[in-house]
């Protein structure tokens, strides 16, 4: 009997169970409103719950008010004094910015735009690391 390749439906179900059991929450940090809204939609479609902040300061305030995140997606504001325990993904405009981004201390770099496919691969990594 041939081994069945994991379908998108199966993958989706596994991601869904991670969300319901562990309530995967993602923080978007971006000073541009329309980009925040776009990323919100993508994260929702990937099955996670999204919070938004305009900058690192707002992000810290959210955390102080009781919210916590499994994943932070930060755009253009990554800097070397970030200290977080959540996984951080930095968004860059071009491939050649990735090294500077990684040196700032992010866990992963993605070249913009964020897509559902890219989100799915990150969620997979989160699953493996937890």
């Amino acid at each position, binding site marked *: 009997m041939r081994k069945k390749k994991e379908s*998108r*439906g199966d993958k*989706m179900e596994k991601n*869904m169970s991670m*969300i319901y059991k562990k309530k995967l929450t993602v923080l978007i940090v971006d000073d541009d409103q329309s980009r925040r*809204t776009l990323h*919100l*939609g993508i994260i*929702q*479609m990937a*099955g996670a*719950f999204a*919070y*938004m902040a305009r900058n690192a300061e707002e992000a810290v305030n*959210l955390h102080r*008010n009781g919210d916590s995140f499994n994943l932070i997606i930060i755009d253009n504001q990554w800097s070397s004094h970030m200290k977080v325990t959540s996984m951080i993904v930095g968004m860059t405009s071009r491939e050649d910015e990735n090294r500077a981004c990684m040196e700032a201390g992010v866990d992963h770099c993605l070249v913009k735009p964020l897509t559902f496919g890219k989100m799915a691969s990150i969620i997979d990594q989160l699953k493996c690391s937890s």
Partner: protein
Amino acid sequence: MDTLIAQLQRQFRDYTISLYHQGFLDDQFTELKKLQDECSPDFVAEVVTLFFEDCEKLISNMARALDQTGNVDFKLVGSSVHQLKGSSSSVGAKRVKGLCVTLKECCDSQNFEGCVRCLQQVDIEYKTLKAKLQDLFNLEQQIVQAGGRIPQVDI
């Protein structure tokens, strides 16, 4: 010196602003609040309660339709999401409305997986909004019970 009332009012203001910033509410909710006065002091609470009942009913209809494997009635799902989009729009439930737009697109293209994913998200979002609005109403009550007035919040 920070009185209890002042503290509560500040909490109320901050919480309200965060609900708008996190995209849970939009201008339409602001309009709803303007319709509330001494003659109808529970107007907003009543309207959103009806909305959440609507959510439960419509989501359940759509889930049932999507459960008919091999025989999904996408038209039924489409008309339910159309209704939900309308009612979420009229109460200012911005995130729910946004997801309804996406769900409608999945429906129109008969994208089964997309519909399922989206619907699960609609469920999470309306329940989250419900909990957050409950927190907000509780804050209002606390302010009134402490003898204060509910502040006008400009977004």
